[in-house]
């Protein structure tokens, strides 16, 4: 079980790294936000499930309760993070930030 938890956490860290790469390298606000939002929700859920599994290495009722609380954080992130990304994108669109097109300068 510890091995599975380690693999999940490592996969989460990998997706976090991809997200950081996207934030640093993509050309404009929308695509950067795309990289941040997508990889962030996947990676943080992987890490959280990994931590919840690792917490079960000595199995008892109290530890199961703690793991359930950790999983509730994952549910919260799945609702809140895409909503925040949506609100940011929508505000940027209303404020008139133009998307990048091929051949234009990076911003």
């Amino acid at each position, binding site marked *: 079980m510890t091995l599975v938890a380690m693999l999940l956490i490592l996969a989460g860290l990998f997706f976090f790294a991809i997200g950081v790469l996207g934030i640093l390298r993509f050309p404009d606000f929308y695509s950067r936000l795309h990289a941040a939002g997508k990889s962030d929700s996947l990676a943080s859920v992987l890490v959280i499930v990994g931590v919840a599994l690792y917490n079960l290495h000595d199995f008892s009722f109290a530890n199961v309760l703690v793991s359930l609380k950790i999983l509730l954080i994952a549910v919260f992130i799945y609702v*809140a993070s895409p909503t925040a990304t949506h609100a940011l994108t*929508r*505000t940027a*669109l*209303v404020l008139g930030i*133009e998307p990048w097109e091929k051949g234009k300068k990076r911003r």
Partner: protein
Amino acid sequence: MRQLQQRVETQQQVGESLITQTAVRLLVPFVQLFGLYVIVHGHYSPGGGFQGGVLLGSSFIMLGLAYDQKTVLRLMSERTNILFGNLGALIFTGVGALCAIFGGLFLDYSALDVLIPLGPIEWRSFGIFLVEVGVGLAVMSIMASLFWDLGSAGQMDEGL
């Protein structure tokens, strides 16, 4: 691009979007429940009055951001808000002053043993809980009213 922008603008007001509103409606009860949990478990886990109060206040800030000021003021009027804030400060200073009246120092809860005999150790634990409730109420009210006043420049009409 321009077309898309106009469509968004004519559709609704700037801050309003169905997705945000639904998510906020889904999250607010749980955020408030978690705020109460943090206040009540303040003595033996991370958290306490201030943090729980901030969570409770931030639920109203979330409502104010997703909907508008009028909706929030219908749910929690300014008068009720100020009442809660003052009640919190009254609980805090009241518990402290009661301790001083019954022969201890200010906020020395073991002195309240004269009032209800629980034993001084139990009273120290319970007294912290009472004070945390007061702090939580005051912080909730101040957080919400700070956002309302700053977001509408003191007019309390539109909001962001």
